[in-house]
């Protein structure tokens, strides 16, 4: 019986950790975006997943990596 409890406890901890990791990844992905401001005062926001942002975001990640290494 104690063995069953230990397995259940381990499964609970593992599940919680997996959920936490998934949640963090999801929230990090939601932060990824491109906000462009124009001279006339207008602004456009391109979210991650938008085709226009697909070339911009990898370049920004490359710049962050270059300047930090």
């Amino acid at each position, binding site marked *: 019986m104690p063995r069953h409890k230990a397995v259940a406890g381990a499964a609970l901890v593992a599940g919680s950790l997996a959920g936490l990791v998934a949640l963090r990844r999801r929230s990090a992905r939601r932060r990824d975006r*491109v906000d462009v401001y*124009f001279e006339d005062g*207008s602004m456009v926001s391109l979210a991650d997943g938008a085709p226009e942002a697909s*070339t911009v975001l990898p370049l920004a990640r490359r710049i962050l990596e270059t300047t930090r290494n």
Partner: protein
Amino acid sequence: MDGAQALSDLTEISSQIQAAIVLDADGSTLATTVDEQRGPEFAQAVQELLAAVTRASGDEGGTLAQAEIATGDGSVFLVRDEQRTIAATTGREPTVGLVFYDLKSCLRGFSEPKPKPRPRARKPKVDEQGDAAA
């Protein structure tokens, strides 16, 4: 203002800015905070990013003034004027308005001419004839 000094002031004023570079209209580097080894790669990537952002927002029709590219690892900021572009990196979730303000101020520092020294006030001439007559 000296370019290196302007960027040094920028990183001193804004603790959020980790690295920065100023490019001329033709893409040449005017000043950067990163070392000589990584400078060219940084400049090249910023030029590519600027082109990609311009392309990505091309249908909107306006002229690009500034941009923030936010990722899970940090943000990259771009600010342009008629002649130059400044790019800077920050950590995650920066104070966007403050970073833009600091970058614009820094860019203005490159545009403004050096203040001329004020001319000294002349000493009034002593009227020698008047003195001799008296």
